[in-house]
């Protein structure tokens, strides 16, 4: 498989602040690659270095095998979609899309053809003469994408382009963007702080924190087997317990939590008894009133503090008995659990395979 973008040991420092710290990754041709991280983690700086708007302090960036060192952004086969889109207000939609083609010196007829084909592809046929400020948020989005895609870049970079849209439109654009990427087959590198955007759209996601990549993996693996405590907490919701290991073997350990509970969980790295650990547990890993016959479950009782109804994403907010740890427990909307009320005492069970355990990082 062809590698479109290779970032090798790239570092960027501003004075004494390290924005991007020795980051390496490769993006295969035609894939959708996301960089997910909280604001200020260095992801925008990384993207700007790929686009050429910022020079890396160290390391190399290669696009289709060619080093981009010293090549200015207007000569790079990548295009960037800006956070606020940066459509040119002094031009209409058609001129915006034709801007890059004109700079390349294509002839008028070709430009017109390409612009119209592109408008059709993003479902904006007949919008060429409209002014930019006559468009809705979603339409602007599509113009911005069309303006870049019409240049057939090797890699399309997207800097949180959905951030400014309202929720409903964002959900819709997420699916549209994914479909569009599949249709045009261009390599997308997408940065976002919204984990759902990254998980829904991407083939591969890199989780970035404080300038370093914590993990590069498929969305499924990020969610199910995070490599670091940061990934476990940042991708999806997680309940956290602190405790220490009572006894352990290669695959599993018995953990005593700080509030005095004993749990058995699988472990993925060798640990010693007495090690301080953090245990992460997904809300949906916790079963409400599990069948008494189920084996290998860690069972304990909780007091329901609140019911957080949110459609398919409804949760129970609960405290374990005699402890004030707050737990989020998934509440399937199957009417099976409709009897649960505030302040009820219920039993919770979780399979030892679904626990995620890391040595204490703090």
């Amino acid at each position: 498989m062809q590698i479109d973008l290779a970032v090798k040991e790239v570092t960027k420092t501003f004075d004494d602040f390290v924005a991007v710290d020795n980051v390496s990754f490769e993006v295969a041709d035609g894939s959708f690659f996301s960089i997910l991280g909280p604001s200020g983690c260095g992801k925008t700086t990384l993207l700007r270095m790929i686009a050429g708007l910022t020079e890396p302090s160290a390391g190399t960036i290669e696009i289709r095998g060619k080093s981009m060192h010293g090549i200015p952004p207007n000569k790079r086969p990548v295009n960037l979609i800006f956070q606020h889109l940066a459509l040119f207000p002094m031009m209409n939609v058609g001129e915006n899309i034709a801007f890059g083609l004109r700079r390349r010196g294509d002839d008028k007829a070709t430009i017109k053809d390409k612009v119209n084909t592109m408008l059709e592809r993003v479902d904006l046929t007949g919008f060429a003469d409209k002014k930019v400020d006559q468009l809705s948020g979603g339409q602007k989005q599509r113009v911005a994408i069309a303006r870049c895609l019409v240049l057939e870049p090797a890699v399309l970079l997207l800097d949180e382009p959905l951030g400014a849209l309202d929720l409903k439109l964002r959900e819709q654009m997420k699916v549209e963007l994914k479909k569009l990427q599949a249709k045009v087959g261009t390599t997308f590198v997408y940065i976002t702080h919204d984990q759902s955007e990254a998980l829904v759209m991407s083939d591969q996601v890199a989780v970035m924190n404080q300038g370093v990549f914590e993990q590069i993996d498929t969305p499924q693996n990020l969610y199910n087997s995070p490599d670091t405590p940061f990934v476990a907490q940042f991708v999806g919701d997680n309940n956290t317990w602190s405790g220490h290991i009572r006894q352990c073997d290669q695959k599993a350990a018995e953990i005593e939590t700080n509030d005095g509970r004993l749990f058995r969980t699988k472990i993925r790295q060798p640990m010693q008894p007495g090690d301080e650990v953090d245990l992460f547990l997904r809300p949906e890993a916790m079963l409400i009133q599990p069948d008494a016959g189920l084996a290998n479950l860690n069972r304990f009782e909780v007091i329901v503090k609140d019911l957080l109804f949110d459609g398919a994403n409804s949760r129970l907010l609960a405290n374990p008995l005699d402890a004030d740890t707050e737990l989020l427990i998934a509440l399937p909307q199957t009417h099976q659990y409709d009897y649960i009320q505030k302040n009820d005492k219920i039993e919770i069970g979780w399979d030892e395979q679904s626990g995620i355990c890391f040595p204490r990082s703090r």
Partner: protein
Amino acid sequence: MMKNQKRWGLFFFLAPVVLWLFVLIVLPHIDLLIMSFRYEDFDGNKSWSLKNYLNFFEEPIYWLTFVRTAIYSILVTFLTFVIALPVAFYITKVVNPKYQGFLLVLLLLPFWVSELVRVYGWMILLRESGVINHFLLKLGILNQPIEMLYRDSTMILGLVYTSMLFMVVPIVSVLDSLDNSLIEAAYDLGANMWTILFKIIIPHATPGIVSGSIVVFMLTLGNYLTPNLMGGKNSLWFTEQIYNQFIASFNWNQGSAFGFLLLVLSSIVVWLGLKLTRQNLKKVVQ
């Protein structure tokens, strides 16, 4: 009741403006207009006549000075723009924002002294026995001093210098509102520096450029001091002709006619400028 109060409020605040405009601007102009159509022969008989305006067209020195003034004013406006745009761009986009105010103050600083003093400053620098000649002689670049004053180029230098601030400030304020990502987006889409300048920066800055140009053009066209002192006898400016009529020849009727011609000229040029740049006055003065 409310409506009445509102109307009185409006009247109260508008009255000084209207009064000021009327007494100091409209009335004298009406008087000048009337005067420009009056003619006094050698015997002191006054009559209505177009003679003052005809004089202008019949006497080449008058309309040549007029055309010269117009062309040089446009040139000064253009030169001021060419110098002011990079300055404004530097202040708004390149320099660290914390020095922005400081740089603007630096621009403003020369305007704390009167125009007269500034022009004399230039004269000290440029005259035959001036500072620049002194150094050029000392360094052996010149064998004998040259007179740098009283040339068209010197006069234009002085006029551009005087006008800079009035061009920089409006351009700074429009460039401030230009989103940096537009420049970066154009760069990313393959534009070079010149395309970015002509396709993004100048179209965005047009309202500021036009309003700066109008102010600079009017100020230059109506400037008396700088052309008089720096241009001397060799560089006639139309305002000097008006002055001569009023003060030297004591021909107020002729002076009024010239004054009106200058007013018409500046109105036509401003109107043409607005038409050419497809701007309207309302947008520009905002």
